[in-house]
């Protein structure tokens, strides 16, 4: 079990919960990665990095798609209530990630 400075958090439990939730997402989601660290206000947080298909990344659909995914994670994980972690979300398209080859998103 790894620890973060803000408290004792069972990272294995979180990994399992995120994995279970991710499996319920639709085909518009290519992959989900996350990290646990303090946010910009030094509060404990969980940052999700979500790669979307090109179709889902278009601005016309991006708001709906990202909003549904955000709500889903809020309701499925209750990360604030269960772990004291405020969730943040960032979304990239598949082609953007391919061009950058950023390991944190791979």
């Amino acid at each position, binding site marked *: 079990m790894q620890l973060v400075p803000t408290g004792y958090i069972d990272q294995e439990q979180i990994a399992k919960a995120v994995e279970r939730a991710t499996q319920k997402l639709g085909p518009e989601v290519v992959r989900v990665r996350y990290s646990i660290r303090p*946010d*910009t*206000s030094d*509060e404990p*947080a969980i940052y999700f990095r979500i790669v*979307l298909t090109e179709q889902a*990344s278009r*601005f016309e659909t*991006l*708001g709906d798609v*990202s*909003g549904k995914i*955000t*709500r889903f994670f*809020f309701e499925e994980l*209750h990360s*604030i*209530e269960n772990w004291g972690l*405020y969730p*943040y*979300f*960032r*979304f*990239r*398209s598949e082609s*953007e990630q391919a061009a*950058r080859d*950023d390991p944190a998103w791979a």
Partner: protein
Amino acid sequence: MAFHDDLLQQAFDLASKNPASPTQADLRRSVSAAYYALFHLLISDTIAHWSLASSRDALGRMFEHSVMKKVSGKICNSRLFPFLGEDPIVVENLRAVAQAFGQLQDSRKTADYDYAVVWTQTEALREVATAVTAFSSWQSIRNERIAQDYLVPLLIKPRD
């Protein structure tokens, strides 16, 4: 258009500029503008309740980013704020606004200060979309009691 509407439009314009090769400056300023659009929307709705119109501008200067974020984070905690007996649609919209505020403020700080983070156009557009949705959610609940109750501690630091 109101200042917050102009900021939202500016955020979209910057994020969608140069789709083939967006600059980090445009994308980062877009994220910042998206946050400030929601920030000023909430402030303008709060100070509109101050009956003496000539004092509203001064009142608008009293808001603190950190206090607003703390309050918004608490609203998202269903144990602290279960909103029992309230209309679930209103609660969902209020939490969407509060969540958007926290997300946008955190992204704004990253966009403005963190050199290590490279923004893509989708990432910036998503922040704009978050602000657009928050505007729409706020519009649908702004006259509801729990929405008005949310505005009060944004200005007045609550006791811990």
